[in-house]
């Protein structure tokens, strides 16, 4: 049965779009039929991160308003054939996204795909609410930093009260994805540790993505990091998280960078 997953966070810039692309690609690389949907109307970026920015013809709003058929708007990934993108509109007003329209589109996507992954806009306004409303599963993306943790707490409260599942009295499955984690700084007490964040937010952990240069490089070239550097630390962490989402038991380890002598001596500049 299809699962609708929302990638959300409250705060902007914590890695929602990067994580949507990476988790979507990782699930597809493991054989599932996946669509990633950009809900950030007016500020779309998932197309750019996925490297499909020049292939956008129709978008989510066109489909919601009935100006285009779903199949016309879906962009199939050139690298993985079982991965598709439904882009957001760059120009339209976000009020064009109606609850009824979104419900119909999500329903159609459920019939076509195993995973419907919704990339939520930042904030707690209408767009974010619509992105989470139909979700069966939520991935809350959090940086180990006070403002991100606070906003995640707020979003968790909304997942528990403002989603279709919550309104039906059912529990929505929630997972915490910690991104931009620096094990060294956490060990030195300079950054909130994984345990600190888990204690405060108390939802199960689905993955720890270490801070990594590969993430920026992947978005520079327009590729999910699991495709751009599949053997890197960030990609390995995303692959593990995707397997956990699919129900597998995977030990929680933070992949570490294997540093050569030169980069040990001269830090990151030599990498």
């Amino acid at each position: 049965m299809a699962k609708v997953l929302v990638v959300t966070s409250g705060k902007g810039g914590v890695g929602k779009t990067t994580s949507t692309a990476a988790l979507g690609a990782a699930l597809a690389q493991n054989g599932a039929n996946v669509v990633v949907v950009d809900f950030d109307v007016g500020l779309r970026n998932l197309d750019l991160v996925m490297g499909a920015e020049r292939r956008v013809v129709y978008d989510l709003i066109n489909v919601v308003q009935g100006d285009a058929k779903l199949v016309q708007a879906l962009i199939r990934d050139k690298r993985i054939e079982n991965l598709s993108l439904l882009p957001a509109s760059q120009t339209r007003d976000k009020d064009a996204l109606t609850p009824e329209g979104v419900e119909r589109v999500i329903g159609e996507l459920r019939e076509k795909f195993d995973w419907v992954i919704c990339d939520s806009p930042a904030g707690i306004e209408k767009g974010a609410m619509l992105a989470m409303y139909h979700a069966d599963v939520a991935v809350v993306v959090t940086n180990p930093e006070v403002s991100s943790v606070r906003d995640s707490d707020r979003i968790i409260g909304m997942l528990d009260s403002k989603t279709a599942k919550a309104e039906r009295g059912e529990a929505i499955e929630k997972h915490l994805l910690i991104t931009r984690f620096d094990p060294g700084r956490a060990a030195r007490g300079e950054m909130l540790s994984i345990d600190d964040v888990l204690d405060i937010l108390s939802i199960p952990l689905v993955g720890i993505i270490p801070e990594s240069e590969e993430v920026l490089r992947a978005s520079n070239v327009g590729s999910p990091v699991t495709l751009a550097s599949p053997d890197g630390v960030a990609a390995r962490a995303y692959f593990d998280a995707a397997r956990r989402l699919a129900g597998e038991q995977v030990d929680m380890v933070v992949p570490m960078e294997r540093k050569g002598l030169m980069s040990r001596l001269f830090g990151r500049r030599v990498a």
Partner: protein
Amino acid sequence: MSLMDLFFKRKPSAGIARERLQVLLAHERIATGHSELLAKLQEEIIQVIARHIKIDRDQVHVKLDRGNDMSTLEIDVDLPTVMPVVSAR
């Protein structure tokens, strides 16, 4: 990192972050919980009154005052002197 930092090592700050968050979120969770409860109460109280009396949404005020030992729920309904009764069906 400046040269001074090497001599006067700063205290790790993650513990401070954790404590600040714990205090703040304890308050915020109660506050958002209350505002949702109040919205629900207001909505249902309006519905009950509207079954018998024609009433406007802004004629009903619900307020929660938190004290240390006891909290009070204040429901304030403005009614016109001649009550426009909803006819019985």
